[in-house]
């Protein structure tokens, strides 16, 4: 019963960190752009939030599956298989939770008054100093809520994860997957325990998000 919890935490933390890095980089590079390219990239990255997880899972299977060019390449050259692996679960959770991180950070970056930055620049502050002393503190609430939301969403990810990573106890059997199979097989004890755990944790996160971070 503990194994799915540890695994879920690992997968969610990994997904959150990767998504945080990618979002930050993308926002940095796309921030000033107003091109069609930017709009299309953004839409592609946000759309998994509204797509059914089964569709996301299907795309990942088609792109990274063993019969796909990428899947074949990874397997033949590096003996890596994404499908039915912990990495697969991280990718699924990351793609589905990405929009939450991206939107949170982006809206806080866009809310920064550009005159602060210009003022700092006229007074001779280095770009690094501007970043650490102005941009980062102003974005902190957005970053924190992005982290919390992404982590919670990754923790709860079920559909795409099951399709991509399958159900391997100790390797890809996350809390939601374990709950699904426990209920199917009538194992109420495991189901109740995991349901209680994930509900409490999610409640705690959303509480923190709403009443602590946003103050």
């Amino acid at each position, binding site marked *: 019963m503990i194994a799915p919890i540890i695994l879920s935490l690992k997968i969610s933390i990994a997904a959150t960190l990767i998504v945080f890095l990618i979002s930050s980089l993308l926002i940095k590079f796309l921030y000033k752009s107003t091109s069609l390219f930017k709009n299309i990239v953004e839409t592609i990255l946000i759309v998994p939030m509204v797509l059914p997880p089964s569709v996301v899972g299907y795309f990942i*299977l088609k792109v990274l*599956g*063993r*019969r796909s060019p990428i899947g074949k390449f990874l397997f033949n050259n590096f003996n890596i*298989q994404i*499908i*039915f692996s912990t990495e697969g679960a991280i990718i699924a959770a990351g793609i589905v939770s990405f929009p939450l991180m991206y939107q949170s950070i982006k809206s806080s970056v866009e809310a920064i008054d550009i005159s602060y930055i210009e003022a700092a620049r006229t007074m001779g502050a280095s770009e690094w100093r501007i970043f650490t002393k102005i941009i980062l503190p102003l974005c902190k609430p957005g970053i924190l809520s992005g982290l919390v939301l992404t982590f919670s969403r990754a923790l709860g990810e079920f559909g795409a994860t099951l399709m991509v990573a*399958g*159900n*391997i*106890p*100790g*390797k*890809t059997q996350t809390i939601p997957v374990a709950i699904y*199979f426990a209920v*199917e*097989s*009538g*194992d109420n004890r495991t189901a109740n325990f995991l349901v209680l755990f994930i509900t409490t944790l999610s409640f705690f996160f959303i509480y923190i998000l709403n009443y602590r971070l946003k103050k």
Partner: protein
Amino acid sequence: MKFKKLIYSLLVVSLGTLTIGCTTTKEPAKKEEKPVSITISAASSLKNVLTDAKTEFEKQNKNVKININFGASGALRKQIEEGAPVDIFVSADSSNVAALKDKKLVDEDSVKTITSNKIVLIGSKDSNIKIKDLSELPNLTFKNIAIATPETAPAGFYSKESLNYYKVFDKIKSKIVYGKDVQTALSYVESGNAELGMVFYSDAKSSKNSKVLLEVPSNTHSKISYDCGIISTSKEKDTCKKIISFFTSDKGQSILEKYGFSPIK
């Protein structure tokens, strides 16, 4: 004018149906003609064969409409326990039907064994894995082996029993990916994402993208028998009995055999 026409035609139509209604009720009631709708909950390994058998049965009995709900036997049993409106339950084992019989949810005298099956080890169609018996599994190089969830799907239960018989289950545990039913396990192998899988022979036979690598001896797992029974709340028990005797008839058995099931003697 148009409106008047419409009213007239409506009148004519309704009168017409009324008279038709009258004449049919006056005629000596032919019981057979009453449309009957039957819901069967069936093990997912029966998907292809039952779809075929259903068409055949409906051809012979024009008034019967059969709906089939496929799933893992254990999951279907749970649905019935929760009160799902089902008439016939066909399981890929005998214990799920027996459990419902004990709870008086299945009529005791209706339980029949309709067919049997074999467990096979399969690989994707281009697989070059060579294996003589399951004890060699830990020495083979592969990333994943797909089986159905043993707790809900009988195919998985038998597979696990056989793996335990050869004492290899614990050694390959971290490579086993569990499909929710046997069809899912098969699809994992067909897509190439799992190199190996353990499914029923009938599943392997229906699949073009996988091939049988090894037939698992039947003495390494408990007896495979597909049992069925009539749910006690069914209102159409006569039709249910007819369907079950169709399964056990020569015609029914030959359909089952065509799909790779082993006949019952």
